[in-house]
């Protein structure tokens, strides 16, 4: 199904679709998958349900994208830390508790 059709099905009018792409909130060439629809749902919730204006959406999305980038980095680091030999892990945890 064409990308545009899916977005329009999600309740996003053509003008707003273009406007959001222009704002950089959604990608022009992003695959129209569940993730993209969820992002659209978030922007809809912000603008319609929560009464956040355009500038506020810009700020919120910018911070959220940074937050998710950080969470992703933390998850990757945690996965690698989990693979450390137990004595090294213990030493790291103890150092973290001491605040080294």
């Amino acid at each position, binding site marked *: 199904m064409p990308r545009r059709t899916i977005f329009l099905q999600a309740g996003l009018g053509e003008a707003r679709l273009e406007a959001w792409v222009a704002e950089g909130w959604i990608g022009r060439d992003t695959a129209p998958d569940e*993730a993209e629809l*969820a992002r659209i749902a*978030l922007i809809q919730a912000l603008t319609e*349900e929560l009464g956040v204006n355009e500038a506020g959406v810009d700020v919120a999305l910018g911070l959220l994208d*940074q937050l998710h980038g950080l969470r992703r980095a933390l998850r*990757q*680091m945690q996965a690698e830390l989990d693979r450390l030999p137990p004595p090294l892990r213990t030493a790291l945890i103890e150092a973290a508790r001491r605040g080294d």
Partner: protein
Amino acid sequence: MSDDPYARLGVGRDASADDIKRAYRKLARKLHPDLNPGDKTAEERFKQISAAHDLLSDAEKRARFDRGEIDASGQERPTQRRWRDHAGSARDSYASDSGFADFADDDDVLSEFFSRGGRRAGMRVKGHDLAGELRIDFLEAVNGTTRRLGLPDGAVDVVVPPGSADGQVLRLRGKGAPGWGGGPPGDLLVTLSVAPHPRFTREGDDILLDLPVSIPEAVLGGKVEVPTPAGAVMLSVPPGSNAGSRLRVRGRGVPRADGSRGDLYATLALVLPEQPDAALEDFLRGWAGRGYDPRKGRG
């Protein structure tokens, strides 16, 4: 939290539609699950205020609820799509590292993780360094040697380069603890402990020793044998050399890394014959110069 939709939104029963909308939005901005990515309870709390809002924002439903015809149940929305369930995945092209880009220097372990797009190479950790001590004698340090050092799991041959000094640390790359995740092993750091020598002492790259000379050698000069770390050499003692004179033997000191060597300094020590010598005594009694007073003028 109470089941009462008014209480959930924190408004009174006489709240206007605008009051309700304002109260709901204020709460929703705090509780929306996508604004609380790490909080698993946010969805449930958000559902409760959404249900309250759905009921109270519909004038007909609100009136029926107020009359007691319906209760607050049955207002729940179906589960929504949530961006937080997708955000930050490996495929998320929106997630940004700009919030922590300053963490990551190139030689920083963390930079492995803090790169956008998730280069998912496994973390390679260098093994930790081990420490050891090696006792060697003076000449081994000066001339260099190879010594076997016992370790908890085996032994390692330590090459002590010429010109090594007491307290010097030799780094044996890759002889430390094994690495992890394909990382290289650590290093073995061997601290040298150099025993003193009965005759030589060391001052930087120079070697000092006391050189005993006889009376004729001191007075008349001559060739004398001088021990050096690399074997004995012949040294010319000039005529009239006094006790305490320092004679330099160039290039016979400690080897340097560049291939040159320091010098050896021999301090002359005047030594009388071990047994009293009657002929020497007779000679000195008849010696015209015996009135010389080396202490004269010293106060």
